């Protein structure tokens, strides 16, 4: 990771002596731009589908205190949860990936690559298949599974004294968990297996107002928390010893960030299944956009991730009609390709 350069802030939000927040011009411009693009993408994706709806009707439906034709309203009732889930899920997964990248000091970390998603998934499948838990509880079970996996992976890799080993350990743990999941899935018979196969690649078909509400609740707590924490993350980029020298407590901070990362992934896995590579790509792109400063990267990563997942889902459900491609598949295909191109570009630059 490159270290951030000190940029001069354009404006400073100041309230007495307690609040002193310098705002960099570039990152605020990027955030604003991405926000606009995301809003636009959401509008377009509300329009698209097996029944196309005109922009006017969409805006009419969105506008408060007006009544829409029942036909449009019912289609919208099917579409908006899916779009909301894509935006929330994308934001949560990509921030989770970025937090792990900071903790691991490795730009290749990602909840899917480190086995955390698989840990959540294994716990959720066990909880759902064996104990028949309700979706609201599944997120908690998933959080537990994800956090345990993250803890195992980090402890195993911690003693390796090599940041690169982390990914390999994560891959291996992910493979073991994947096999365990397969055993459970095969037990459930072939039909269920085929359905789970689609879920295991991240499909947003199952998005409902209920799961949207659940995710929104988690997101409303966790995402602001991430923004708050992002100010404290900078010293970690310098490595544990240096961070301690600067007055941070790297161990506690790493532990907290890992817990946060697992918590961000769990509800997404419970609602739509694991989405690999999104964290890796969103983190990479946003670091290219605004540099290494965590306060800027975290919001940009959220927006990037939301935009990528929303686009992938919209493309997946409209381009190949009548076949609906799970968004996770498109994310990993598009993601791997973007990532490779980005890696190529960044190499030629340095």
């Amino acid at each position: 990771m490159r270290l951030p350069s000190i940029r001069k802030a354009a404006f400073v939000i100041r309230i007495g002596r307690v609040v002193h927040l310098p705002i960099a011009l570039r990152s605020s411009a990027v955030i604003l731009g991405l926000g606009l693009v995301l809003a636009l993408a959401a509008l377009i994706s509300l329009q698209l589908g097996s029944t196309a709806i005109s922009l006017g009707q969409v805006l009419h439906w969105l506008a408060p205190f007006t009544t829409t034709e029942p036909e449009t309203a019912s289609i919208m009732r099917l579409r908006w949860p899916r779009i909301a889930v894509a935006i929330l899920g994308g934001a949560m997964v990509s921030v989770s990936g970025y937090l792990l990248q900071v903790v691991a000091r490795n730009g290749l970390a990602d909840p899917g690559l480190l086995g955390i998603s698989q840990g959540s998934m294994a716990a959720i499948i066990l909880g759902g298949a064996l104990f028949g838990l309700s979706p609201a509880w599944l997120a908690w079970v998933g959080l537990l599974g994800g956090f345990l996996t993250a803890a195992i992976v980090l402890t195993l890799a911690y003693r390796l004294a090599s940041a690169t080993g982390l990914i390999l350990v994560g891959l291996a743990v992910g493979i073991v968990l994947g096999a365990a999941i397969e055993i459970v899935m095969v037990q459930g018979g072939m039909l269920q297996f085929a359905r789970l196969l689609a879920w295991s690649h991240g499909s947003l078909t199952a998005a409902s107002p209920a799961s949207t509400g659940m995710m929104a609740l988690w997101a409303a707590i966790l995402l602001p928390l991430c923004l708050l924490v992002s100010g404290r993350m900078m010293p970690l980029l310098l490595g544990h010893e240096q961070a301690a020298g600067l007055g941070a407590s790297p161990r506690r901070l790493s532990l907290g960030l890992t817990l946060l990362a697992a918590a961000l992934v769990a509800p997404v896995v419970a609602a739509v299944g694991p989405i690999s590579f999104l964290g890796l790509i969103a983190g990479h792109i946003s670091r290219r956009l605004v540099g290494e400063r965590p306060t800027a990267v975290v919001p940009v990563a959220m927006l990037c991730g939301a935009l990528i997942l929303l686009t992938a889902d919209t493309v997946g459900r409209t381009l190949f009609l009548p076949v609906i491609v799970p968004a996770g598949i498109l994310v990993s295909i598009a993601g791997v390709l973007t990532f490779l191109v980005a890696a190529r570009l960044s190499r030629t630059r340095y």
Partner: protein
Amino acid sequence: MKAGSGLALLSVAVVALALLHLMAGARLASPGVVLDALLNHDPRNYQHVVVVKQRLTRLLVAGYSGAVLAVSGMLLQKVLRNDLVSPSTLGINSGAVTFVVLGIYAFGLDGAALFWPALLGGVFAVAVTFLAAGLVRQGARDPLSLILGGAMTATLFSSATTFVISIDPDRFGKLLGWLVGDIGNFDYQPLIYLWPVGLLGIGMALALCRPIDLLTLGTEQAATLGADPRFVRGGALALAIPLAISAVCVVGPIGFVGLIAPHVARLLLGETGRSTMVFCALTGAVIVIAADMAARTLLAPQLLQVGTVMALCGGVAFLAIILTTLRRRAA
């Protein structure tokens, strides 16, 4: 361990395990019955039929795929000078699966004819892995980049596989077992056509063993010692991929035999030489036969897929290998 005694011991183990494999199952057959069924086969005796028609074919399929995948992994590890490489970690398996599914979907192929699309898929996947690894590489010798590239390739291809299956799920209903790696009752059909690939491949690997060993000293040193690095590397890859594919066609994408067997062989019999290669093939056979037995008996009467059992054990072994190699490097 001396090469001769090691090979002898392992051969005894293979025979014993094979006997055990023939005995085990829903109805336990005594060793006498097994021998009887093999030596003077009585087609009217139900137990004889079960032993020969079902268990023996399973045994042969398991042994063949294990040996072939192990040799393939050994070749790859030596030529790429990377202890973590194997047909599955390079993405060969998942590439083959994708192309097989495509072959079934687009051209309605089946049986041994699927070898060709699978081979194409394997070669394609290796190319993608090398490309991806080249892009993420940091520094000249970075063993991680190849594995990460392989993981990306595997994700890409398994996504593509799921996509093709989701187009027409009914058509692939009976394929689901194969997708996770399974040794069923009818798998011997492609093997009838594919066993020469394995035999020839292992034979060639033994012949090329010495120059391949030289390559472990680095390209330049190997060249000045008299081996043509490009020829040897190309030859080894040209052997390793078809070997792995011939196993994938029969039993599906079984991972990790190709990773673990070479490590076991090198640990016990030394880094180089033809006897290590033979030992590696036998070890691979033992591993898959044992995994098949475990899959059939562990959760009986429920059957598990051998690929799942392999992934479970293999993942743990992979973890152990990573932890030991990286710790040694750090020390």
